[in-house]
């Protein structure tokens, strides 16, 4: 078991200093993610203009994988259209479950590729993405990946 595959430098860095942490003053969309068994909690604010995700912020507490995943996601989807973000989530999900051969094309998000060796942690890495989906869909109920 190679832990350095799971806790790659990029993950540790984004966990220590998460990007886009906090709240937006006037989000157009927001949602909450909650994995109560783990104790991962996430609130996501999104500002959508037309079809484009203009800005997003997250806050909450979670493990290094869920925090880094939220941070990496926030960088990756900013400026993307809804369709582009959805396509990216599809790729990330395939990467986490080991179905994506070419993780490298996902750029920094590829740092999460090691999660596929730790099935119990896939839900940690995917929580932020499911929460984003819920926010964009206007869903009110908290999301969970447990």
């Amino acid at each position, binding site marked *: *078991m190679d*832990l350095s595959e*799971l*806790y790659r430098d990029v993950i540790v860095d984004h966990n220590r200093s998460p990007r886009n942490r906090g709240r937006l003053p006037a989000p157009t969309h927001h949602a909450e993610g909650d994995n109560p068994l*783990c*104790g991962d*909690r996430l609130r996501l604010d999104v500002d959508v203009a037309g079809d484009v995700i203009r800005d997003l912020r997250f806050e909450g507490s979670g*493990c290094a*994988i869920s925090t880094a995943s939220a941070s990496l996601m926030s960088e990756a989807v900013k400026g993307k259209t809804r369709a582009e973000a959805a396509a990216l989530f599809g790729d990330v999900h395939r990467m986490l479950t080991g179905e994506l051969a070419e993780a490298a094309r996902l750029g920094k998000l590829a740092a999460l590729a090691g999660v596929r060796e730790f099935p119990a942690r896939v839900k940690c890495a995917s929580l932020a993405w499911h929460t984003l989906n819920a926010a964009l869909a206007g869903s009110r109920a908290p999301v969970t990946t447990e």
Partner: protein
Amino acid sequence: MAAVREAVAPLDLARIRADFPALARRVNGHPLAYLDNAASAQQPAVAIDAVADYERAHHANVHRGVHTLSQEATALYEGAREKARRFVNAASPAEIVFVRGTTEAINLVAQSFGRPRLAAGDEIVVTRLEHHSNIVPWQLLCGQTGARLRVVPIDRRGVVDFDEFLRLLGPRTRIVALAHVSNALGTVLPVAEFIAAARERGIATVVDGAQAVPHMPVDVQALGSDFYAFSAHKMYGPTGIGVLHAREPLLAAMPPWQGGGDMILSVSFEGSTWNHLPHRFEAGTPNVAGAVGLGAAIDYLGRAGQARIAAHEQDLLDYATSKLAGIDGLALVGTAPAKSSLVSFTVEGIHPHDLGTVLDSRGVAVRTGHHCAMPVMEFFGVPATTRASFGLYNTREEVDALHDALLHAIRMLR
């Protein structure tokens, strides 16, 4: 416990460890340090073999057949009941109901004892440190009857407030349900005092003993509890079997809670008559193999000596407490003066799940999460903790392995 420690010879740890096949494993290239005993303890070979022997040679249905195997299976099953009776010093084997585990035992009491007796406005008192299995069955009962749940608070050490408990006992209190030992914090409750106060007021008492029986001798007659529940798999036996001890006069007045075979004397479409105690509460073919494994685990605990086990585990707790105190940013959650041998803690800047993963990579098995005690986590303002819980076979070296793995995790993640 200190008096006990001086009075008995120590456990022969090398011999004890050799009795548990799983302890010889290596995990991720390291010797396994199994510190998740409060979730489920490993089984000695004698318990595993007793089950295998039953399955290979004596397997049959119980209480029915006249053939040899059925008689042997019945003798083994009822023999296990007698062992369980002696284990908690119950007055009679009729008071020992085999169930799937503590959770089922508490649900049985809620539905069979509680539901017919409770009315709207009645009260059930539980403590803040209960496991979900000693909260949710009572919530269901409240929903069915209109009764109310009252919660005894705890302090920052994880000690249950006895004075507040006394204040909560009122004219409408019908049931007091409390843990003997907290699974999340390790607090040992002075249950005898709680029970005495409830009994004086004619209130029924239900004790969740799942975390107590592996660590200390329990005498239900001395405690005076009406109901006392425990699970085999926390005391070195198999999963899927546990015991509800219920005082006979109460049990005799309770309706069956599940219907089926084995719990009846006669069945006709005009009506059925219920079997004698405790069989009335054991509908269907029981978990004979599980009971056999439980009986073997009880024998094993008896041979090891419960006083010796308690002394050894107290030493491990003291050693772990002082060792972990030296780790920067580590905070113990649960610091009651009377504690069972577990340490629940948080480490600043590192989520318990990351700790759990790093510890596992070093062969150290701990539990991370809310330990099925979310109200406790909420009280301490943490989403989750890491919990190392010790059993009779654990060693100081394993505490050292925990300590070193924690330092490794901190270097890696903080």
